[in-house]
C-alpha cells in the first residue's frame, strides 16, 4: 500500500480525474473530500462488506438442512 502524509487542505490525485482532499483532521477522524466523475462509485468499505455479508446471510441453510443447522447454531 502506498502511504502518503498529507495535511488539511492538501490533495492527492488518482489517475487523471480523481482528486482526494484531506479537509480536516480531528480526534474523531479525518474528513475527506472526493472529486471524481459521476460514474465513479465511491463507497465506505463497511457498506461493501455489509452487502457481501448480507448476501451470504441470505443464503441461509438449505430447507433440507434446516434442522441440522438449527441444532448446530444452538450448540
Amino acid at each position, binding site marked *: 500500500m502506498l502511504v502518503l502524509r498529507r495535511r488539511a487542505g492538501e490533495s492527492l490525485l488518482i489517475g487523471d480525474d480523481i482528486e482526494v482532499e484531506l479537509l480536516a483532521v480531528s480526534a474523531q477522524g479525518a474528513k475527506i473530500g472526493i472529486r471524481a466523475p459521476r460514474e465513479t462509485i465511491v463507497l465506505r468499505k463497511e457498506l461493501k*462488506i455489509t452487502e457481501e455479508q448480507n448476501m451470504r446471510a*441470505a443464503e441461509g*441453510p438449505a*430447507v433440507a438442512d434446516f434442522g441440522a443447522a438449527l441444532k*448446530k*447454531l*444452538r*450448540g
Partner: protein
Amino acid sequence: MPTVETKYFGTMEYREESVYEFPHGLPAFENERQFVLIEQPESKPLVFLQSLARSSLCFLAFPMWAVDPNYQLGISHEGLGLDTERQPAQGSDVLVLALVALRAKFSATANLMAPVVVNLNTRQALQAIRSDSLYSCEHVLERATAEGMC
C-alpha cells in the same frame, strides 16, 4: 389474520405487530422493506426475519445479548429516530439483532459490525453500519456458544 409464505415454516399467520419496516431495505436488499419477525420455541434465542414480499428470503439472526452481552450500540439517537436523551434500552426501546451467515460444515458467524436495529415503539428498522472497527463482521459463533457452556 394475514398470512406469509415462509422459507422454512410453510404458510404462517402473523400479527401486524410482528412486521418491521425497513424504509431503506438492507444493503444488497434495498427493495425488501418489510420483514416479519418469527420466533420459534424450539430455536430460541435464534429468530427469523422473513421477507413479506419474497418467501425465499429469510435471515437467521440472534439477539445481540445472546452473542455478546456487553455489546455497545453506539448509534446516535437521530439515527434511531428516538427523541430521548437517555441511552436506548436494548429489549424495551430497541431490539438489536446480529445477522447469521453459515460457513462450510454449518460453522456460522454473526455480523456484529452491522447490527439490525429495530425501534420497538415505531417498528421502524435499519441495518446500522459501524465504522469504529470495534466489532467483527464475521464473529465466530461456535466459540461464543462454547464459552457459554463452560
